[in-house]
């Protein structure tokens, strides 16, 4: 499968990444390599083989509805932008 520059730009946009200069081209080459690596699987005869989604065959792995205090506000904020406030601070999402 071939990756076009438009594909790279679309993915970058969906991930809100800006690929400037030669970065888009470098990314295109990386993605092409990754897809080429995975494409090896297409050489196998997979007729009648169900897609493998889960690494185990377990079902109904459910927990009880028991609330727990897992971390404090300070712990939650520690590594985030705006640790000094009540909120995480990120660049403005909506223009004024």
């Amino acid at each position, binding site marked *: 499968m071939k990756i076009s520059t438009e594909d790279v730009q679309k993915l970058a946009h969906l991930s809100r990444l800006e690929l400037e200069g030669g970065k888009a081209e470098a990314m295109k080459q990386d993605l092409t390599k990754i897809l080429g690596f995975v494409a090896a699987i297409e050489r196998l005869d997979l007729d009648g083989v169900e897609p493998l989604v*889960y690494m185990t065959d377990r079902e109904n792995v459910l927990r009880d509805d028991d609330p727990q205090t897992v971390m404090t506000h300070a712990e939650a904020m520690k590594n985030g932008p705006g640790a000094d406030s009540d909120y995480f*601070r990120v660049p403005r999402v909506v223009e004024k």
Partner: protein
Amino acid sequence: MSEAVVTAYEAVIGLEVHVQMNTRSKAYSSDGYDYGAAPNSQVSPITLGHPGTLPKANSAVVRNAVRLGLACGCQIREYNAYARKNYFYPDLPKGYQITQDETPICTGGGVWISSETMAPKMIGLTRIHMEEDTGKSIHDLDPFHTLLDLNRAGVPLLEIVSEPDFRSGEEAYLYLQEIRKLVRYLDISDGNMEEGSLRCDVNISIRPVGREKFGTKIEVKNLNSFRNVQRAIDYEYERQCAVLNSGGQLFQETRTFDATKGSTTAMRSKEDANDYRYFIEPDLAPVRVTESFKASIAASMPPLPQALVKRYQEELGLSRYDAQLLTESKETALYYEALLATGCPAKSGANWLMGPVQAWLNERALDWNQWAMPAASLAKLIHLVESNTVSFSAAAQQLFPLLIAAPDSDPKALAETHGLLQESDEDALLAHVDAALAAFPDKVEEYKAGKKGLMGLFMGEVMKRSRGAADPKVTSRLIQQRLES
């Protein structure tokens, strides 16, 4: 016939409703959620999307989904996979929402709506699926940043997608009321639209009456009350008709409702169409809903409002209006059920609940869940009236407040202590009647001269003298006898 002369259009409307569950912990992590808690105080590494964390599905979410599905007559899917819906937005810390894509847990079924003026109609459901909420973005507190409160991130939601079965804003309004009632009866959600526990997006198009093909679909968002959903639909219908009638064209778009102006405006169009790149969530094992699990849920279902309305009308002979009022909330319905279980006559039980009890609550701005009198006590009070032991007015105006103040006491003993037992003993009553007439000799003359309206005055005087205990029918007969003798 050319398009331009067609003026009769019908609206074709579908609703997407998100119900926020009242589970104690989140959908895929064990942190709790309380509306209005301090920002970012109810989070966990899973909620925050920290690398290396793994979600754990909450069993109560599956149970609630099956409850709602059974209540709406849906098919419940046996094999359920979770899916990732990928998009980038800061209030979605993982970069994807865990939802269901190709295997929604409920499909089909429907919700019945009706009103005083509308015959019952079923709104079909396309699907109900389980998913998680996002955090909250705050855009107006900091001039340079968007602020994030991630408490709500990961709170479980049920998305209920209807078929395009609505034809008016009123139908949508009735449907939302019915959904809210259902989730409250089922104890899945508090159903509070103002706090965001119920959210609704509208899809609306119009087409010439009689035509099968759908028109251009327009989505309306930002609807924060049932009335606003109805207003937005009514506005959109008029707007779309006006565009087509003036020879214009409609485009598929998303509009937002301005509640102050009562109108919708186009939202800035997204630069690209969304591409959510759904795939199966590999971190959560699939859920298999077995027949025995479904049966156990079915066995634990509470009575549901529509079944109760039907029973109250058909078996108890109540009016549609009374049946609706009694089932408006689960608390009222359960209380009425408890009252019926004591053998209380259906009609007088209904009258007492919708009359004196409701009035007492209204005067104090209280809810039914704050009504503490045991049903058995109220039933005894009602029995005193039914057996003519206490008059209705003495029961409602005097005994009832006394019983509220002492809910565990015996109503009959209370009536005795306060002299409220009805006097139908004619000798005792006659004494009151004679005293009353003696107090107003001039009025007695006027009555005899033809002013029959004075009867009320004499009745009132006897009631006063007997402290409300006089049997009104007997009293009225005795007064007449005395005056006309």
